[in-house]
């Protein structure tokens, strides 16, 4: 990827200080190009959550410039924020599945939100469930699934609207170590099809075993940015 490629995420001199006085991010400069797979690592309180919250525009930076998927997040209007979020899929650590809805309904929910028609919903949800290996569990309820399977439902929901960017916030945090590999392998497979993946993790083994770009945060600053296969952190 050369320097002229338009980045999918670009932080320029971004700082974020909360009302409580906590300096969560300090002068962050980073460029993530389309099609990249990036691990974001760092100890608790390093600024990983704030980094993600700024990208999904749950929080607004105090200074600097931040562009995500072509949206200028320093200037974006409130009514455009939902449209920004439709360009990305979010995977949560705690899965966030609605317990009263079946696997199919949980995934379809994301399509209802954007007003998709019923036929398309049926077709796309079935396809994405097959892709994550849950084609035969469409009618199951979340409590009938293992942690790994529940996270795959979460992944299917994030993917169903075909976003250009996947934000995964510690997606393996609540999953058995052996199943964590499955999740990251699935994300890698999705990445290979062209979707940009940004994954926050604490799991150094995963970072070491899957050779992707790694951004390391410490006390709100980027202290390391190793290109894919660029060595251990």
């Amino acid at each position, binding site marked *: 990827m050369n320097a002229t490629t338009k980045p999918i995420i670009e932080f320029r001199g971004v700082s974020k200080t909360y009302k409580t006085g906590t300096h969560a991010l300090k002068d962050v400069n980073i460029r993530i190009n389309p099609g990249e797979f990036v691990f974001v690592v760092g100890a608790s309180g390093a600024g990983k959550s704030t980094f993600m919250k700024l990208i999904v525009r*749950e929080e607004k930076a105090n200074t600097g410039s931040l562009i995500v998927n072509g949206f200028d997040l320093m200037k974006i209007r409130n*009514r455009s924020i939902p449209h920004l979020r439709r360009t990305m899929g979010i995977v949560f650590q705690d899965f*966030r599945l*609605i317990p009263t809805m079946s696997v199919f309904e949980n995934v379809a929910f994301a399509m*209802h*939100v954007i*007003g998709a028609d019923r036929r398309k919903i049926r077709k796309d949800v079935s396809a994405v469930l097959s892709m994550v290996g849950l084609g035969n569990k469409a009618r199951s309820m979340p409590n009938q699934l293992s942690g790994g399977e529940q996270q795959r439902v979460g992944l299917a*929901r994030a993917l169903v609207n075909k976003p250009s960017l996947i934000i995964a916030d510690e997606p393996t945090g609540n999953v058995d170590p052996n199943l964590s590999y499955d999740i990251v392998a699935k994300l890698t497979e999705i990445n290979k099809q062209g979707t940009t993946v940004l994954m926050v993790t604490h799991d150094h083994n995963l970072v070491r075993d899957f050779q992707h770009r790694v951004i390391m945060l410490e006390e709100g600053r980027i202290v390391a940015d190793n290109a894919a296969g660029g060595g251990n952190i």
Partner: protein
Amino acid sequence: MKLRSVSYLSKEGVKNLWANRLMTVASVGVLMACMVLIGLAVLISMNVNKAVGNLEQQNVIMAYFNDKNSVLYGDASEEFNSSQDASSTTSSSADSTDTTISEDDYLIHNEEEALALCDKLSKIDNVLSVEYVPSEEGLESIKEGLLEGKEEYFEFLDKDHGNPLSDAAKITLKDMSKFKETLQAIKDTEGVDSVQSQSDLADKINALKDGIGIAGVWIIAILLIISLVIVSNTIRVTMYSRKLEISIMKAVGATNSFIRLPFVIEGVTIGIISAATSTAILYFCYRVAMEAIGDALGIINIIAFKEVALLIVGIFLAIGVLSGIVGSVIMISKYLKKEGSEFTAI
């Protein structure tokens, strides 16, 4: 928002009502109680207003005309209330003065002029009706009414004095609050000699009407606020119980109006269910109360429910739908501004 989204969200709203059925039943129950009380307040105030209206119609003003008798006997009412001694004196003077009174001393000489005066009176602002009461008819009605069974005591009236009453007009008013002005206008009309009225009763009626009006408005206003609080509270509870869903909606790019709609539908449905059940309950309560009051007091003049059913249903639907919309919009907007803006950590 697309039509299919609206249909999906409407189904979701109704589904949520069933999912939170305990809360739904509680809200419908309290909202229904408020609506029934509002309905009762409306019905009571309408019935009292009707009764007061009847009283108003009975509170007539008698305008005595300036005719021969009025010159002969002075103020007819005063004359009539005075003692028998006075009547005998008047009797002799009547005989003696009869010839001394010329036609120029009074203004109403015949029935034609009396009817013309009635017509003039009917044109006064706030006058509802004017009924011509010739002196003979006036005397008859006094005999039949006030003096019933004691006619023999008053035979002297016919024998010795003839009829001392003047021709008169029986006047009813449209609005008792303008009683004084109207009375003055009647008094000032040329050809009217004197008027007889019950201004005390008019004042009491006005005070009663005002009191009922003010009490009704307060009761309805308080109950409306209670209804709004109830619906808002239900929506708030269901909203917090659906934090997870809202966070997912936000994460996948739902607009605020998309998130809001199922809650609004929920609120409005609670309102409509409450309105329907309240109408039924009010109908039975009113029927029972009407029969009981009718039996006890013999009043048959109570407004029938079917006469006001449309109004009541309209009021209930308006309360239900409005409190549903306003309550849910206020609550969900508040929520989305605060807690709802954070979705990555709930």
